[in-house]
């Protein structure tokens, strides 16, 4: 009998229509917790990391954590793991809403979707009943239409995860959209779903999640509830302004990358800040499953050319579609954000790709003839148009849809790609936040902010304040309290935003009574480390080397203006210290003794067999 976990993994082969159920390996769950860790472990078992990402061999794994759906605060997360079409690294995109818990209620810890269907299909999971159904009528539809159609076709309260037209057209920036507006966006997981011709997954679960010790679990939940609702960041600013509460703050400290990272302060930031959103377009806030924070913004632009309604924009979306493109019109940014949602594409990569194109255009490497219209920084109408073209792969959008790395390469300016491992950086300037610089360079899915958001320490002082410019001890900070810790949190099924208010201790205090397995602080540190090293091994096996742990040259040059003019990202010496702290060799490879310590020696052997 499983507690917390459901104990079942669902395997669906779209090539031959075979549906099977497998038991969860309890030892594996103990070692890799669940969610990101467990799904990554399953992926490593499924494939050789060297395979082509957009191929039928690459499975799409939906994973949930042992806490997902248990009703403890903020337990709404599910993850999507595969080899990333955009980057070629391991991909792990996660999302909240109500879809993750529904998978658990239906009785599954993870869904492994293999193969490739010849025709568009959707998957209908009602508890133990699983069907592959034709989806020709849904093909081409936006997520909101897909969801309402599917709820008519299946069950009115079914929860839906689907791709938009972006994913159908294999845009490498496309994600998987659930509950209309939430999206597991980065790394191009939507393209793989599109490649499999799987339009959507509809789930309805009527079962329950057993808890090993309900009394203890309830106590720990109430305790966490009190901590979160008493926290000024989680319950204060995120509730009042959502993630966009950061806009003014980061911009004021001169760490808000602007115009494709040319500068670090944006004069129009106030217009697109959380306060402006609250004032101008906010309808109300709403919550994911069991979340007291409720950072989601329901917004509406009521009239004008940018009329629309949806959720967000979130902080990174506001930034990528705003400051990064030099756009300070909130309604245009909101519209571009709604469009990204409709097409099911990642707002960060979309904004960053348009910004890259803008710079190429202004430098003369791209002409008006190629694009079809002038694409200058600050041109909001052109930016919104470009988003549409990307979603539809129409005209020049066909080139943009594959992300800024491929765009910059194609036009002979690879230095204008602002990211690492082909994934674009997000809205915290690595010139200012030295922790973020190291994190972007070493993150396992490319330059990403949610693999270890050191801004928590460098700005909010959680777990303790480390001034952004200081270099000392940043390696250890990035490694343990951020990268490893995030891996653990993502694996538990709880939302990362709670981390301002709680630590591993509270999460373990929930995990133990939920699962009946002894989770404790010390073990959680090792679990996080194990997951991180596993992902690293995947990437090394896929062909990445220490040479890929780098940042674009531009951020190593001094910031030209703003309150932190002159600051720059410093990496060189830190990488080696970081490798050393991780127990890796100078080439950034986990040493056999490190792998043995983490119980990953099997994986090392598998690697060698391939060599």
């Amino acid at each position, binding site marked *: 009998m499983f507690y917390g976990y459901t104990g079942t993994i669902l395997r669906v082969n779209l090539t031959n229509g075979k549906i099977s159920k497998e038991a969860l390996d309890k030892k594996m769950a103990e070692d890799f917790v669940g969610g990101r860790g467990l799904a990554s472990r399953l992926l490593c078992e499924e494939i050789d990391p060297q395979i082509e990402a957009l191929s039928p061999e690459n499975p799409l794994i939906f994973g949930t954590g042992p806490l997902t759906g248990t009703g403890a605060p903020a337990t709404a997360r599910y993850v999507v793991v595969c080899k990333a079409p955009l980057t070629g690294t391991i991909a792990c995109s996660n999302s909240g809403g109500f879809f993750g818990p529904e998978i658990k209620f239906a009785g599954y810890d993870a869904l492994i979707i293999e193969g490739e269907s010849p025709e568009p299909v959707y998957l209908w999971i009602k508890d133990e009943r699983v069907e592959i159904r034709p989806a020709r009528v849904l093909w081409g539809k936006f997520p909101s239409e897909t969801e309402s159609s599917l709820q008519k076709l299946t069950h*009115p309260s079914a929860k839906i995860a689907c791709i938009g037209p972006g994913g159908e057209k294999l845009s490498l920036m496309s994600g998987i959209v659930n509950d209309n507006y939430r999206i597991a966006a980065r790394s191009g997981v939507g393209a793989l779903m599109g490649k499999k011709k799987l339009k959507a997954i509809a789930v309805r679960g009527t079962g329950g999640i057993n808890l090993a010790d309900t009394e203890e679990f309830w106590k720990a939940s109430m305790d966490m509830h009190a901590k979160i609702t008493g926290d000024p960041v989680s319950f204060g600013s995120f509730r009042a302004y959502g993630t966009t509460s950061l806009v003014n703050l980061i911009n004021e400290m001169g760490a808000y990358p602007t115009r494709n990272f040319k500068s670090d302060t944006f004069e129009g930031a106030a217009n697109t800040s959380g306060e402006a959103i*609250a004032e101008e377009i906010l309808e109300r806030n709403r919550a994911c499953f069991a979340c*007291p924070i409720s950072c989601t913004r*329901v917004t509406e632009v009521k009239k004008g050319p940018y009329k629309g309604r949806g959720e967000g924009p979130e902080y990174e979306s506001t930034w990528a579609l705003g400051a990064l493109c030099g756009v300070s019109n909130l309604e245009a940014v909101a519209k571009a954000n709604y469009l990204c949602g409709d097409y099911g594409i990642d707002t960060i990569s979309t904004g960053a790709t348009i910004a890259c194109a803008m710079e190429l255009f202004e430098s003369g490497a791209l002409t008006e003839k190629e694009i079809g219209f002038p694409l200058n920084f600050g041109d909001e109408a052109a930016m919104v148009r470009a988003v549409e073209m990307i979603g539809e792969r129409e005209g020049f959008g066909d080139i943009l849809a594959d992300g800024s790395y491929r765009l910059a390469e194609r036009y002979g300016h690879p230095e204008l790609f602002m990211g690492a491992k082909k994934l674009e950086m997000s809205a915290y300037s690595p010139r200012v936040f030295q922790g973020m610089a190291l994190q972007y360079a070493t993150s396992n899915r490319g330059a990403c902010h949610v693999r270890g958001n050191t801004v928590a320490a460098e700005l909010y002082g959680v777990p303790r304040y480390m001034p952004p410019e200081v270099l000392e001890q940043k390696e250890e900070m990035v490694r343990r309290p951020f990268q490893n810790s995030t891996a653990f949190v993502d694996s538990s099924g709880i939302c990362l935003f709670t981390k301002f208010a709680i630590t591993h201790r509270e999460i373990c205090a929930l995990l133990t009574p939920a699962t009946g397995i002894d989770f404790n602080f010390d073990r959680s540190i090792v679990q996080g480390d194990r997951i991180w090293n596993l992902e690293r091994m995947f990437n090394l096996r896929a062909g990445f080397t220490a040479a890929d742990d780098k940042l674009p040259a531009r951020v190593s040059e001094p910031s030209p203006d703003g309150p932190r003019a002159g600051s720059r990202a410093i990496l060189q010496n830190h990488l080696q210290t970081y490798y050393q702290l991780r127990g890796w060799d100078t080439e950034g490879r986990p040493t056999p003794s490190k792998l043995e310590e983490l119980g990953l020696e099997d994986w090392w052997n598998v690697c060698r067999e391939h060599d």
Partner: protein
Amino acid sequence: MNKLEADVIIIGGGIIGCATAYNLIKKGLDVLLIERNGIGSGATGRSGGGIRQSARVSNEIPLAMESVALFPGLSDELGIDIEYTRSGNFRLVEMPDHRRPMQVDIARQQSHGLDVSWLGVTDVLELAPGLRWQNILGASYCPEDGHCDPLRMVSGFYHKAKEDGLKVLLNSDVQNIQQMDNGQAEVETNTHSLKAAKIVIAAGFGSQELCRKIGLDLPLQNVRYESMITEPLPPILSQMFGVASSDLFFRQTQNGGIHFGGGLIEEENEEDTRTTGDNLKMAVAHISRLVKDLGKANLLRTWGGLDPSTPDGMPILDFLNENVLLATGFCGHGLALGPMVGRYLAEWLATDQCPEALEPFKRNRFDGWLQTKWTPSGAFAADLATEATQTSGTGTVGSGIAFMTPPEYDDAESADQQKLLAVNPEMCTGCRMCESACSIEHEKIMRQTGLRIQVAYPSDDYFLPIMCIHCEDTHCMEACVYDALEINDYGIVTVIEDNCIACMLCIPACPTGGITFVDSKETVVKCNLCGGDPVCARYCPTQAITFRAIDTNMREKMDDFMSKNLDSRIDR
């Protein structure tokens, strides 16, 4: 020993002593002031400098309002710039838990005619752009409050009085006070023996000891405050600031230094002006969360001071015997009250008639007071302890964000009725935490079907928890033919599971959709208020569900919006 004589001897050269002396001299009396150290060397000179009427206990508000009205004229009257700025006083709210009690407290202060209001964070920032908004939810704001330089103010009173003939003994320690046969009293210091008809004890934290010499033990306890000041910075704050969560205060002085600090509750009767690292660190950490760009400022100096406090947060102003008048226990409010208290005390001494305004401050309010240890508390903290956090506030704040909208109903009249679950869809964010709590509590498993409470989603911005509202009509009982539903004396309907055969006739009979069928049990289930402490209300993070007394009006309203949205309730 030398013998000096005067009409009135004042012990203590702080703001109360000096202001009283100044007003007595104005009345033509012969006054002698005895001070142990120097003028303003005690609590006055070490104070925060806030001149406020807001955040006071109700009985003190009229006196504070009168006193604050004197401040604009004080600089001219005393011939010294006391650096008074009437820029307003904020009391910042950082925790959601403090927001509603604060709004209740504001309503209380407004009822005394005070111009104080609740400001949301954007309004606070507009007035005080130097604050870091991300840690602030809002604040109480009183525009007529302000701050001044305490040392300049006390020396103003002192020098003006001295010019007009005040006699002074500095560095003199009072050792005894005795009543004499001739109706006068004698004060013995280390150097002098002094006689007067009236003695005023305004000796701050030293007053307790002097009272004991007269044979009275009053409930006074010393609170140590620690303050510090930074190097001069460019002007960033003009108002006086306090916070709801602790004793922190801060202001920017006219030369630019940020003066801040807070209290540490400790009983210490020795003069102790130490500062403790821990307390300072806490204050620095706290203020850095609230004020922008303080990180780089250097601290110039730190100091501590003792302030006598009383259990109800108000001073004791009363005669201890025919000769001795006590004026102490100001709980940190002496600076603001000083000018008016000085006037009233002078009037009292000159006429032997207690001014009506000082009636609430007599010591008989502590008659029968048990000498147990108590924690001195400010007005707000005291209210926090007594007001239930479920009390709703007044006024509307902010827009669009659920947690900033106070509930629209409050029904004190029906307080003695049976408490029920009240639902406010405006506050609901659709998170379904109520469902989770209900499931774990009653089913001991986490599931989303067969629940006693369900969240309906009529639209993407309107969410509604639906459950049994224990209506007076009891349609469900009428529909049940198996006696499977019973009602108790308080009108709470529950299911008798043994009798229920799951015919489900009660389900469509319920107008709000409060009854559900559970297939695993083969009975229907409904809310039984968890036997008096509903978990859904406890777990709800936004107070969209509260457990409270409900009047008919509210019940009808709930009936209305639940039955109207019954269609959108989907059995999960």
